[in-house]
């Protein structure tokens, strides 16, 4: 038997089951909490910091995607302060590498771009860091442009948790952090990649894309295919 908790999010009374996260309960109740590393169907890691919310009684902010609900919790998911932080974090993502929407395959299909629109970003205050990064187009079907990668690691998680291949992983640290295939060899040389394309489907930006797509043509499937796959996997007893 699961225990049901009642709590408040942005002043609204909502209910959720024990073990659910604030993000899940908010989603169920139509309250939109932004997030770019979160994706239903794979494990959360609390890294993008866009879903930070205020919880009454605790001085620190909490990542909604990794905070489990408790009875009587009073969550503020939208405030002036949180909006400022979310704008700043989104801006940091933009200036970190080299995002040029005008020539991006994901233009108009990009979650980072949507985030900027939702948060009503108008300009950047911070200077661009834009380090020189590589593009790996060695794979037969897909390519990765690290300029557009925001290190959400959805590709790493979907490859490991859903496909079970664990082709993707992470290397280096700080600004030098990169996703990599098979211990840093070119994607096309990977012996573990099954070419399933799930990484491309879950990528929130144009970092991972199908070859042959031109500007703005990189639309992706409707997102919620992961929960289905997860159910199938569980039913098979894996």
């Amino acid at each position, binding site marked *: 038997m699961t225990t049901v908790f009642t709590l408040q999010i942005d002043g609204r009374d909502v209910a959720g089951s024990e073990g659910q996260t604030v993000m899940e309960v908010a989603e169920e109740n139509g309250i939109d909490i932004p997030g770019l590393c979160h994706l239903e169907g794979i494990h959360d*890691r*609390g*890294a*993008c*910091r866009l879903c*930070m919310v205020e919880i009454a009684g605790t001085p620190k*902010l*909490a*990542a909604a995607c*990794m*905070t489990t609900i408790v009875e009587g919790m009073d969550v503020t998911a939208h405030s002036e302060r949180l909006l*400022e*932080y979310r704008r*700043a*974090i989104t801006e*940091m*993502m933009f*200036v*970190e590498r080299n995002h040029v929407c005008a020539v991006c395959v994901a233009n108009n299909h990009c979650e980072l771009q949507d985030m900027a629109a939702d948060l009503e970003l108008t300009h950047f*205050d*911070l*200077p661009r*860091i834009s380090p020189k990064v590589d593009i790996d187009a060695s794979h037969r079907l897909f390519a990765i442009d690290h300029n557009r990668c*925001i*290190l959400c690691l959805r590709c790493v998680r979907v490859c490991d948790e859903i496909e079970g291949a664990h082709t993707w992983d*992470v290397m*280096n*640290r*700080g*600004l*030098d*952090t990169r996703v990599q295939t098979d211990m840093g060899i070119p994607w096309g040389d990977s012996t573990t990649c099954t070419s399933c394309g799930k990484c491309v489907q879950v990528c929130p930006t144009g970092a991972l894309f199908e070859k042959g797509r031109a500007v703005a043509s990189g639309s992706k499937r409707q997102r919620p295919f992961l929960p289905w796959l997860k159910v199938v996997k569980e039913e098979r007893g894996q």
Partner: protein
Amino acid sequence: MSEMPSAARSIRRRVSTEEIAEQPPRASAYVCEAASCMSAQAHDITVRLGERAAEAGLTDVLIKRVGCLGLCAAGPLVEIAETAQLFERVKPDDVEGIIKALKKVKSTDTRQPQGPFFEKQLRVATENLGRIDPESLDDFVGRGGYEALKRVLSEMTSTDVREEITRSGLRGRGGAGYPTGLKWTTVAKAQGAQKYVICNADEGDPGAFMDRSVLESDPFSILEGMAIAAFAVHASEGYIYCRAEYPLAVSRLRLAIRLAQRAGFLGAGIADTSFNFDVQIRLGAGAFVCGEETALIASVEGRRGTPRPRPPYPAVQGLWDCPTLINNVETFANVGAILRKGSEWYAGIGVGKSKGTKVFALAGRIVNTGLVEVPMGMTLREIVYDIGGGLIDGRPFKAVQTGGPSGGCIPAQLLDMAVSYESLIEVGSFMGSGGLIVMDDTSCMVDVAKYFQDFCREESCGKCVPCRVGTTQLYMLLDLITRGEATLDDLAQLERLAGIVQKTALCGLGQGAPNPIFSTLRYFRDEYLAHIVDKVCPAGVCTITPAEVTA
């Protein structure tokens, strides 16, 4: 260590404590063989002293390798234990003088005061430093070692032990000051058949070397502290996570673990009871963030060393999802003494909610660079001037930096502040693990802030956006200021961004990264303004090229 000349090996045998036990020596020379003195060829001194003592026919004399004697600035150090006479900056030619002094020692001699550097200290966690041979279990036992563990196992329940630690008021010496007794109780009460004890020896703050000195000088006390903790929280396995940059500490720990296992103080059935506990060493690969407990756990598990949001705290869900107790080296070093001498004795030392002593590593522009342990509540002035001997060349004091990259700079007007966890936070700094870097008027505070920001951006694991990108942005702004190219808008941006990074970063590294900026802005704002408005660096550190005049 491994490439030891064969001559040295024979000396080592001669100085082993077993032979001494039969006949107490009349005179003994203690040679500091911790990393700092070792790097100044201290081991050659030990070898030479042994040879010369043998040649001079001194059969009643002991030449002993010991751990850190504390006054690292004056190494290599040799102490005549009976008279407390200290030989500083010893060179091979000085050995004759020490032999002469050894000959003069009489059985009636007593230890003489060694001056304020030593006399004003209170040694608890470091009580065996410079007294015992770190590679000899007998030496440790001879100084009361393992008495506490034996008593705990034979006379106390785990609840008794936890209560004793709680009453002592001991708090985490890694820096945050979480009450140790409370942490132990949480782990003890957490659900789980398997529990772990981890010693955090991933000391990485610039200028800090307390943990290294303790591990190199008294490794058994850490093993004893961990075993007592394991008994108190019902754990049977322990890990010491030590950075690989400390090879001497690691080799002494390895030896200590082997000796303790052989003597029945580690392994199955410790001290002839039914209590089992064993310890393994895990080496860090040079990542500062692995000192953060969740990143440390990930690294021990063999994964990428990145933190995760808490809760759940490791006390409930830690190593391999089991309840895990993580304490710092210095915290474990206090445990044995507390149980031997009682919690009341320990709680009687210190001030307010900060009980006991704290080990500090004095570094920077200070005369007596070295390792000191003082009661909580001592003023910074006493630490810097009385113990530390003041500033090099008598230059004016400008600031002292505590708490590493998450700490802050404390200015001269606060020198009379009593040091405690609370007071340091009040003035915008942080206890941290105990690095204390003294700065004089040749330090530019903007440059200092830039240095620490550079450190944080270099050490950011890259997981969360505010730390990965934010620390670099902060560094770029500070760089702009030190080059004299910043505007007042940039200063406002610096403050705004620092606040955002502090509030949104995932772990302590990112949340603490803006602290050096906040504290230097709080006390040295005029220096920032001098760089920005007047285009001058008051300390003369930053090179600001005058802007070209364009017609």
